[in-house]
């Protein structure tokens, strides 16, 4: 079913709650070895449900998935041994210290104490919690807890790490630090990372590839650059001194230019590489005796990508509180 370098292979994965609420709707994708793969979508799109199925704590209604060649339903123990999970909520035991929590995680993976003690210290150092290791988790701040969760998720040296909304509710500083950890894991250890997020800039900054998920369906998969390019590339807007003259033809001959429009006296140029194109355009215009008076370069963001594929902006897609609540209730009833 899978090629050798595909670490996660998902086919037609579906979760229906209460026979009525389809949270995840026949999604298929695969994640390559050493890749940071992101699920981007608004709250209630089905991201956490997908991750819960992949980490084998929720049974799919339909479809299947393999992680490192192990079926999530049939070989769940093997899958659990090989993966690490950093859940959305804080899961550490508040009554224990940070160090004790990591050791407990190690015990749950069956790692002997002779190994886990050293490993726990290394991880505490990695997430900069060494000074707080003997303090109870109760006394930790949000950022410290998040880092402790990360350390716990790494204790079994997973080949695949799942992060559910890793920076939800964190301040900008801690968020950037978390991003750096994630990048480091990929770079230093060749780890494969699967993360969910509803922050566009997070998906853009971190992920090698993104799947945009909306109403339980994947609408598009690609690298951030590919997705943005699919919109037609960067947009250069410029004006020249002699407004009455038309230089559309001149601009369209410049390298990388895909489309030129003249609107209200200024030219709107689409280019696959704005930084390269802009100086070339200026050069070409000047060579023809014109003077550029204004120029701006806009790069498309994932928000535009999101709008392109779902027909609304990410903020609008964050469902109204009522809808989210109704959905949560339905999910709760399904397993309460």
């Amino acid at each position, binding site marked *: 079913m899978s090629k050798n370098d595909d670490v996660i292979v998902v086919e037609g994965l579906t979760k229906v709650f209460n026979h009525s609420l389809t949270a995840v709707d026949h999604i298929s994708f695969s994640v390559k070895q050493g890749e940071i793969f992101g699920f981007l979508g608004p709250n209630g799109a089905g991201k956490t449900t997908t991750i*819960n199925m992949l980490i084998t704590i929720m049974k799919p209604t339909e479809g299947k998935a393999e992680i490192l060649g192990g079926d999530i339903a049939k070989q769940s123990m093997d899958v659990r041994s090989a993966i690490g999970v950093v859940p959305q909520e*804080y899961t550490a035991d508040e009554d224990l210290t940070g160090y004790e929590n990591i050791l*407990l995680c190690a015990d*749950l*993976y069956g790692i002997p104490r002779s190994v886990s003690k050293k490993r726990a210290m290394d991880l505490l150092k990695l997430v900069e919690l060494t000074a707080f290791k003997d303090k109870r988790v109760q006394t930790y701040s949000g950022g410290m807890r998040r880092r402790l969760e990360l350390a716990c998720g790494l204790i079994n040296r997973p080949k695949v790490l799942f992060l559910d909304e890793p920076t939800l509710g964190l301040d900008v500083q801690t968020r950037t630090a978390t991003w750096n950890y994630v990048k480091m894991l990929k770079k*230093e250890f060749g780890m494969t990372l699967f993360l969910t997020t509803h922050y566009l800039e997070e998906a853009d900054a971190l992920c090698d590839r993104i799947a945009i998920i909306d109403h339980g369906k994947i609408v598009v998969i690609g690298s951030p650059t590919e997705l943005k390019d699919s919109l037609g590339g960067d947009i250069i807007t410029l004006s020249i001194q002699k407004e009455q003259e038309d230089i559309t033809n001149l601009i369209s001959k410049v390298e990388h230019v895909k489309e030129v429009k003249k609107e209200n006296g200024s030219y709107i140029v689409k280019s696959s590489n704005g930084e390269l194109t802009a100086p070339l355009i200026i050069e070409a215009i000047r060579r023809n005796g014109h003077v550029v008076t204004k120029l701006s370069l806009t790069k498309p963001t994932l928000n535009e990508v999101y709008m392109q594929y779902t027909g609304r902006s990410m903020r609008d897609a964050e469902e109204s509180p009522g809808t989210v609540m109704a959905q949560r209730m339905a999910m709760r009833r399904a397993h309460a």
Partner: protein
Amino acid sequence: MSKDAETQVSKSRFHGLWALTHRELKKWYQQPFILIMGVIQPILWLALLGKAMNLSAMIPSGIPGVSSDAIMMQTFGTTDYFSFMAMGMVAFTTVFTTAFTGMSVVWDKRLGFMNKVLSTPVSRSAIILAKVLSASVRAIFQAGIVAAIAFALGLVTGSNFAWWSIFGVFAIVFLISVGLSSLFTALTLRSTRMEMPQAIFQLITLPLMFASSAYFPINKMPDWLQAIASVNPISYTIDAVRRLMIFSDGFGPLPLDFAFVGAFAVIVTIICVVLSWRYLNK
């Protein structure tokens, strides 16, 4: 991080059992306050209720042909009501202690800890059995405290009593605790609300307590209550404890007591583990 990932990891199905049991017990013994509260409560029960209800004093003396000792002996199997009740408390303290397992399952779910455990290679049965085992260890400790206090307050042992009786008491207390904590866990397995285990506790405790021989002998109860009490595993536990400690008429039905409570423990635990495979999911 996968550079030296070839560390020997335990493949045993129960490698998480000790870790999770230890976690529960650690949280318990690291809280001296909870330990002390757990000791004070039975002292109050025994000292206030057990000593206040001095039943033998109610039987008038000096009436020819009436001996309060004989009446007490005939009704309670001992001349001392305090001893009768104290041994009932030894058995019944397990209900209070094990009821918290249900609470702690829901608690772990609410705090997210359960989600983490579920995503690690620990079997569902190990998660459940850790709750059951830690509750049983706590119950044995509690029962031991109650017994010690009873001795201190003047427990009158019967001729059945021998030094090994204590171990018999611990054994039956262990069995009933395994059964009860499995029961409480099974009932709260799917719940994510704190109200649920509390409601269950209140619903179950009262009939368990009064439809048992904790305060009053079963054979003096009305028939319908006798019928309930005769299937109540607590009654068998209490009977076993009294037989080992304060009765003087031989061990008689002691094997039956152990068989009944043992069967209860095994059956409920199996049911609980099977349910956990099905329902202990996100």
